[in-house]
Structure formats: structure tokens, C-alpha cells
């Protein structure tokens, strides 16, 4: 009876080398998964680094352009200053008008213009919006957040 039982166990028990292979397989599976996660993490990190660098460069570019705008506006004002415009007018043959030389015309519905609204002259400053979390969050931070908030933000 006992001999029969041993025979049955031997018949169904896997060979030792097969068990070892299963352990090795499981171990390798874990290693591969970890390698995949690491590769993914590296990829995301690299992309975030590139995006961050691009953001830094864009900021620098914005600053440079704003400086350039200010310089150009001042230069334009220099070129159209009162003294320059008067000189140019005189060179073109104009002279100051005298009161008797003016004709006034009544234009029905005309309203004397109010001082100019200068929004166009004002630099429309960039309203930088908050960067999406995807650009600032590391993988670990993302996992941490998912664990803490259960995927609900």
C-alpha cells in the first residue's frame, strides 16, 4: 500500500530540475518587469528633462523678445519725437498753421475723440498658465498620488 502511494507521488511530482527552472523563470520575469519599469521611468524622466529645458529656453526667449519690444518701442518714439517730426515737416516744406487759415466743418454726429485707449500700445503680457502635472511630476510622485488619492484628483 505504502509502495503504491510512493509510486503515485513519483508519477505526479515534477522533476527537481523542472521546479528549479520554474523558480528561475519567475525570477527572470520579475527582473524583466523591473527592467521594463526602469526603462519606462528613464524614458519619462528624459522627456521631462527635455521639456524642462525647452521651457527654460522659451522663457529666456520671451525675456529677450520683451527686451527687444521695449527697445523697438523706444527707438520708434525717438524717430517720431516732436523735434524730429517738426524738422522733417519743415524739410518737406510745411510751416505752422495760422488761425485764419483754418476752416472748420460741422460733421453731424461727430463726437470729439476722447484720449486714445492705449491697450494696443501696451505689451500684451503673456499669461503663463500653470504647467500640467504631466510635465512636472515624476513617475514615483504619480504612483504616490494614485495610492493616496485612489486615482481621483
Amino acid at each position: 500500500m505504502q509502495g503504491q502511494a510512493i509510486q503515485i507521488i513519483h508519477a505526479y511530482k515534477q522533476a527537481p530540475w523542472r521546479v528549479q527552472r520554474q523558480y528561475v523563470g519567475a525570477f527572470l520575469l520579475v527582473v524583466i518587469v523591473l527592467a521594463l519599469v526602469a526603462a519606462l521611468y528613464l524614458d519619462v524622466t528624459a522627456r521631462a528633462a527635455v521639456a524642462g529645458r525647452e521651457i527654460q529656453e522659451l522663457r529666456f526667449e520671451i525675456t529677450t523678445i520683451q527686451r527687444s519690444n521695449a527697445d523697438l518701442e523706444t527707438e520708434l518714439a525717438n524717430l517720431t519725437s516732436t523735434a524730429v517730426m517738426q524738422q522733417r515737416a519743415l524739410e518737406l516744406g510745411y510751416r505752422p498753421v495760422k488761425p485764419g487759415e483754418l476752416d472748420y466743418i460741422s460733421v453731424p454726429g461727430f463726437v470729439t475723440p476722447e484720449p486714445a485707449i492705449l491697450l494696443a500700445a501696451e505689451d500684451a503680457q503673456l499669461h503663463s498658465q500653470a504647467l500640467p502635472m504631466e510635465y512636472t511630476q515624476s513617475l514615483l510622485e504619480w504612483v504616490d498620488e494614485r495610492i493616496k488619492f485612489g486615482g481621483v484628483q
Partner: protein
Amino acid sequence: MRQQYAIRSWVLAVGLAIVGLAVIVQMIRIQNSEQAKIFLSQGDLYAGEFNTIYPERGEIYDRNGHLLAGNRTVYEVGVSLNDMEDPEALAYILGTYLGLTYEDVYNKLIDSPESWEYVVIQDYVGAETVTSLQQLAQQLDDADDESLHGLGFKPHFQRSYPENNLASNVLGFVTRDGRGYFGIEEKYNDLLAGNPVQVWIPRDPNKAAEIPRVPNGTSLVLTLNRDLQAKVENILDQSLTEYGAKNGTIIVMDPRNGDILAMATTPRMNLNNYADYFVLYDNGSQYNRAVGMAYEAGSVVKVLTMAAALDSGTVVPSTSFVDTGSIQVGGITIQNWDRQPWGQQDMVGCLQHSLNVCMAWIATQMGTQTFYSYMDRFGLGHRTGVDLADEAMGRLKVPGDSDWYSVDLGTNAFGQGVSVTPLQMLTAVSAVANGGHMVTPHVLYSMLRDSHQYNVPAQYAGSPISAQTAKTLSEMLAISLEQESSGALLPGYRVAGKTGTAQIPTDYGYDPNHTNASFVGWGPVDDPQFMIYVWLQEPSTSIWGSQTAAPVFSVVAEQTVITLNIPPDVVRNQFGSR
């Protein structure tokens, strides 16, 4: 045998595990040691840097959008001492391009303290010079020449005034430390400068933390009309030459809302060279005489005396007064400007001939309390509240003051013993030009911030007289100008106004040889759209305001109606009747 191998394996495994564990324990211990904290904090120092971001200073425009004060990029030129390869070459090149001596630059490069990593050679270097230096550095770099290694340029803004001298007395200036002095630049310095923000900028691009947006300083739109300002300054300069005056002031204001359209004074400075301030001015009150310098304006104050008398019911235009050439007030004899009697006069005649005796009589008829109450309501002795820095208050002695005497009632009535700024006087008289309502003069029209424009509403400083009094007095003053064929008259336009000729008080009494000539006027009388104040200091061709300040008023008024497109009265009435 097999069991022996097993034991050895276990011993080896346990040994390695102990070593591994020891390594881990040591790692944890080191990580949490005091030294580790120090190293970590040192590491944080290199992880980024705190930067103070200074916003671009707000710009200043005239009411039509012409830029009066802007910004331009200049550079700080410096050398990174750790990257420097050839100090001799740097000293030679920088000395040549920046106008410095070789020794100065070389000593800066060599004698800098060891702890320094960067040394500034020169700041506020123009873009052209920097571009040349950058091109040279690039050429040398391309040729693998390291002579200029370490050279660096840090851009920043500098205030720039495209119109140079124009409205310098109104604008003020900004020094290199970024602070505004005088005028608008000082009064609105906080708004214009904005709020600097200190931010931590990490070097790790993974920590691309958002740098907060630093809004520019608020830009300002002024009530000034650039073209009119230029014309008025030109007229003022010509007037000083024509009448031999030492200095002068002209203000043009809209009496309906207190908008200052032009404000010219002398001397003016090129705001791009603010060091000239110390050459041109002895003290701050001279910078903008229109608001900073009080003086005895003389007979222009008679407008206020007459306004008070009419409004209080003391006199009416037809009230008769027999001028005997003198009057006793407080035991002191007061005489006319020509020391002559003018006989029987009505109130228009008193204004037309600018009779001191008549005005002193009116003041005595009003009584001390009534007279000074009105003068107080006209704002004499008080600041107008104009939005310009360094406004003077003037002085009106009143009963109860230690230096007030009874005679002051009579002399104050014709403008002696009362010190006012030109803008104070213009503000007070605005009650007459504006139907009894006195305006608060202002230079700021609106503010621009974050793409929004905030207009500044007009403010009123009370109604010292009734609308009827204002209308009556305007008519009286217009008639008085017309009857004397004043030099202030402007063909085609009916104007009202009053001259003033005032002796100049000194420590030894009144200067017998010099005067201040003034004129205050407005027009068109039936619909006042401009007020003008003229003050010429010590004119030498004539001491009289009627022969100096009055004609200047006329010229300024002519340019004002042209610039502001105000048609002649006839045309305007034709348009109005349609």
C-alpha cells in the same frame, strides 16, 4: 561530502549576508549622520539659485499715446574670473571698447578678492558697444583664441526719454538705482516700478518649477498733450528772450475737469542726462516752478477778492466806488499801482484798472472773517493735491497768526503778502471759469496694467462761489480786457482774464526794481475749454504784466485753440445753432 559543501555554502551565504547587511546599515547611518545633513545642505546650494526678477518699469505716454518715458536695454559687462584665460588681453580690449584705462581694468581683474568669481568692469553699456564686443569675442572664439574667455554681458533696462527735454519738469527722472525723482516718476514711483519678485530657479530641468509671472510696472497715460506742450515750451523760451525774464512758467489746463494739458517751466533738463540736475538747479523747488515755487502773484488775486465780494453780496458789478488814490487800512496807507486817484469807478473799472485802493476797500466792506473764509475756500495756503511730487503749499496769513496785522486784510485783497504757486492760483480761479466748481488739477489720465485701462475720474475741490457769481465775474473780466484793448485778447475768441504785477519781497522790504509778471485767463468765455496761467520772473523790457505776461497769454491761447481744434466763437455758435 555533499553535506560539507552545503554547510560551506550556508556559511558563505550568511557571511555575505552579514557583509551586505553591514553595508546597508552603514549606508543608513551615513545618510542620517550630522555630516550628511551638512553635505545635503551644501548640495542644495548648487541645485539652483535665488534670482530677484525686477519688472520692467512702466512706461509713460501723453494723452494721445506718444511715448514720453520708456525703457531700453543696456548691459553690465563683467568677467568670470574662473574662466578668465588672458587678463592682459581682456584689459586691453575692454579698456579700448569701454573707454577705460588698461591699468584700471587689469587691476580689477588681478586684484579682486580670491572669493570673487565675477567682477563687474562697467555697467550701463550701450547695445552697440556690446554688440561689437560680442562679435569680436565670437571671431576670436572661432579662431580658437581664448583671449576673451570669461567675458560676460548681463542685460537690464535703463529709463529712456525719447523727447529729451520735453516736459522734463512734469516727468521727473529715474536714477540708476531705479528710483524716481520729481514729477510723475517720483509721485507714482511705486506703481511704475512694480513689485520685484525673488524666485528659486532650480538647475535640474526635471524640477522645471514654474517661474511666477512678474508683471511689468504700471504704465501711465498723462493728460499732457505732447504737441501743445512742445509749443508752450517754445513760446516760453521765446518770451524769456523777448521780455528779458529770468525764468518763466506757463500752465494750460482744462477748467472742466482739471486736466493739465501743458505745463512748461524753465530751466528744463535733458532727462537722459539726469546728472545735469545738479548743474541747473540750486534746490528741488526750482525743478518745477509751477507747483514747487510759491511767490507773491499780485493783482491776479483780485479775481478772487472780487469773486468773494460778489458772492457774499458785498458788491454788484455796478457798485460805485470813488477812488481817491489811497485808503487807510489798519493804520497804514494803501495806494494804487500808479499812486494816482482814478475817481468814480464801478467794479468793472476797478478790475480793468487794477485798483489796489478799490480792492482794499472791498475787503474792508466784506470784513475779515468773510474775506479769509473765501480765500480759504479758494484753497490759498493749501496744496492743490496735484499728482506731482514736491508741491509747495504757499502761505496765506490769517487773523490769529503771529505775523498777521490789520493792514494785511487790505494788502492781501490785491495780492500782496499772499504767496501762491502758479498751479494754486490757476486752481482757485478755475472756480470762476467752471461755473463755481473748483477742479483738482491732475496729470494722470489713466493707468495701464495687465492689459486693462483704468481711467482716473475728475475730482472737484468744492464750490467756493455760486454759478451766477462765476458767470458775472467772467463777464466783468472779459469786458475789462476788451475795454482796455489788452494784449491778452485773441481775435475770434472771447477770453476773460486778469494781469498781475507784483513787487518781489526781500529781507529788506520789496525790491523796487524787479517784479513778477503774471496773467490768468480762460476762454471761450461762454464755454471755457482752456485756462492759461503765465508767470514771467523779473522781466526786464517792462515790469508790467499787461505788457509782458498778457501778450504771452494771447500767443499761448492761439496755439491752444489750434491744437485743441477749438473753432472761433462765430463758427462755434453757427455749429451750435444747427
